[in-house]
């Protein structure tokens, strides 16, 4: 029971931390949205926004498409990078033992983006960006930053890191192919970001970069919130915040449903 109690408190701490982080994120977002005086030149070089900053996952959610649009001053190419919330991931490799495939080696990664999408207005080679810039702005799935947890052996990293990208692509959370940023009349650009039905929840960042002559000359970050809403969200929240009451309710609901079904069919 002692173990159970520590688990509960850890969970509660986690919830508090989450709350603190969300408030921080929200205030950061508010700072972004607030009209702050900026250097006139930088503000005019690149402007971008999303048609909606909130994706609500409701009971009937089957995915959605977000529109990102904006304009640039002068010439250049546009790169849009969408990052999902950061999460810790355990990667396990199966080995065959007595004919059965069993999880054996494992490796923990920290701060893995739960979602990743990139779109460019020109093929990546045409951007002429040096590798350092590609890595810094994490342009392309091979440049996503995947940090190993402490104590992991870095020599073993490569196949496990590749497995993260491969698995995330398979479930549609990462996209290997860069999307297209389309031009409208020379200065205006637009692109769509497909948010699949199984999208992870949390605070996303949409980074829009202006590239001129093989250099990122301007950048703008827009937040995007993906939340569970409605009945499903309440169920999820109840299950995680009040697990004991949730468990009791689950038993009562099941018991009552069985009782009611029995009664109805006896009357029929």
């Amino acid at each position, binding site marked *: 029971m002692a173990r159970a109690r520590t688990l509960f408190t850890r969970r509660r701490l986690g919830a508090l931390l989450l709350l603190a982080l969300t408030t921080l994120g929200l205030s950061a977002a508010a700072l972004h949205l607030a009209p702050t005086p900026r250097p006139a030149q930088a503000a005019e070089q690149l402007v971008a926004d999303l048609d909606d900053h909130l994706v609500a996952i409701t009971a009937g959610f089957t995915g959605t498409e977000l529109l990102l649009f904006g304009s640039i001053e002068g010439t250049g190419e546009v790169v849009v990078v969408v990052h999902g919330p950061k999460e810790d991931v355990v990667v396990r490799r*199966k080995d065959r033992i007595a004919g059965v495939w069993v999880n054996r080696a494992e490796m923990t990664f920290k701060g893995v983006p739960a979602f990743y999408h990139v779109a460019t207005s020109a093929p990546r080679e045409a951007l002429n960006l040096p590798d350092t810039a590609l890595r810094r702005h994490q342009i392309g799935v091979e440049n996503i930053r995947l940090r190993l947890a402490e104590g992991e052996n870095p020599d073993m990293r490569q196949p496990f890191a590749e497995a993260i990208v491969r698995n995330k692509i398979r479930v549609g959370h990462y996209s290997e192919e860069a999307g297209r940023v389309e031009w409208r009349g020379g200065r205006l650009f637009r692109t769509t970001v497909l948010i699949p039905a199984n999208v992870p929840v949390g605070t996303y960042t949409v980074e829009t970069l202006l590239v001129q002559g093989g250099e990122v000359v301007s950048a703008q970050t827009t937040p995007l919130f993906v939340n569970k809403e409605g009945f499903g969200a309440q169920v999820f929240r109840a299950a995680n915040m009040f697990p004991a009451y949730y468990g009791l309710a689950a038993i009562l609901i099941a018991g009552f449903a069985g009782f009611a079904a029995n009664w109805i069919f006896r009357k029929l």
Partner: protein
Amino acid sequence: MHIYLPIAEMSVNIFAILGIGAGIGVLSGIFGVGGGFLMTPVLIFIGVPSPVAVATGANQIVASSVSGAMAHWRRGNVDVKMGLMLLVGGFIGSTGGVFVFRWLQTLGQIDLVIKLSYVIFLGIIGGLMAAESLRAVLRARRPVKGGRGKLHEHNWLHGLPFKMRFRKSKLYISALLPIGVGAFVGVLSAIMGVGGGFVMVPAMIYLLGMPTTVVIGTSLFQILFVTGNATFLQATLNQTVDVVLALLLLIGGVIGAQFGTKLGAKMKGEQLRGLLAAMVLIVCGKLLFDLVLEPADLYSLTAPGGE
């Protein structure tokens, strides 16, 4: 029409889930089994994470055993004393089982253990049933000879201490026996998400020597409380009970069971058993095949802590 399952975190077709519930309800009505041992594997096949499938399965069985337990209670077919002894074991077993479940989850081995337990149990039970119905078919062709054998024999089990008198079952046996049976079934209900009737009923008849009239009622009585305990612990420790999924399954289930009962009354016993055996073996084979076949990707991702 799609609905988002909040705990399984996936979008599913409502009618597909209702259909699965109804299908398994029909089967459980025809064969008079709980159906948990088919429900959990089917949920795993459609992509529900195995921990959620197991915990939700236990929750759904609470609903399906309530009406059965009540009907038997009214008819006086429940040996309460025996039921309570089984329950003592059941609580110990299911509580221990849920903690083992959590431990296996952090090790990343829960999927394997769930599937392996299913392969083993479905294999044994399917095999035994197939053999039994084959023998019955053969026997039916030949004239019956000889009467019924001894109901039960005395062996070392009757030398165990803490003897108790169970009036309704007309037994004087050690309390350790029902507690042991209950504990074993409790572990199964925690790890496999089943009621465990398919193990407990034979154990009560052959091991404890209980009269068949009180076996079903008493086992349902114990299953109701043990799956309730498993549901509660899975919800508090692992957060893997999906009430939306459970509700959809049980709506389909209760309707299916009503038709199943009527259908079952029209069919022959041996044919039924053979059919059920075939189905159990198919599910077992599919699970085994998935474990042995080289997976498409050897690497898999989970959150730390296994959830």
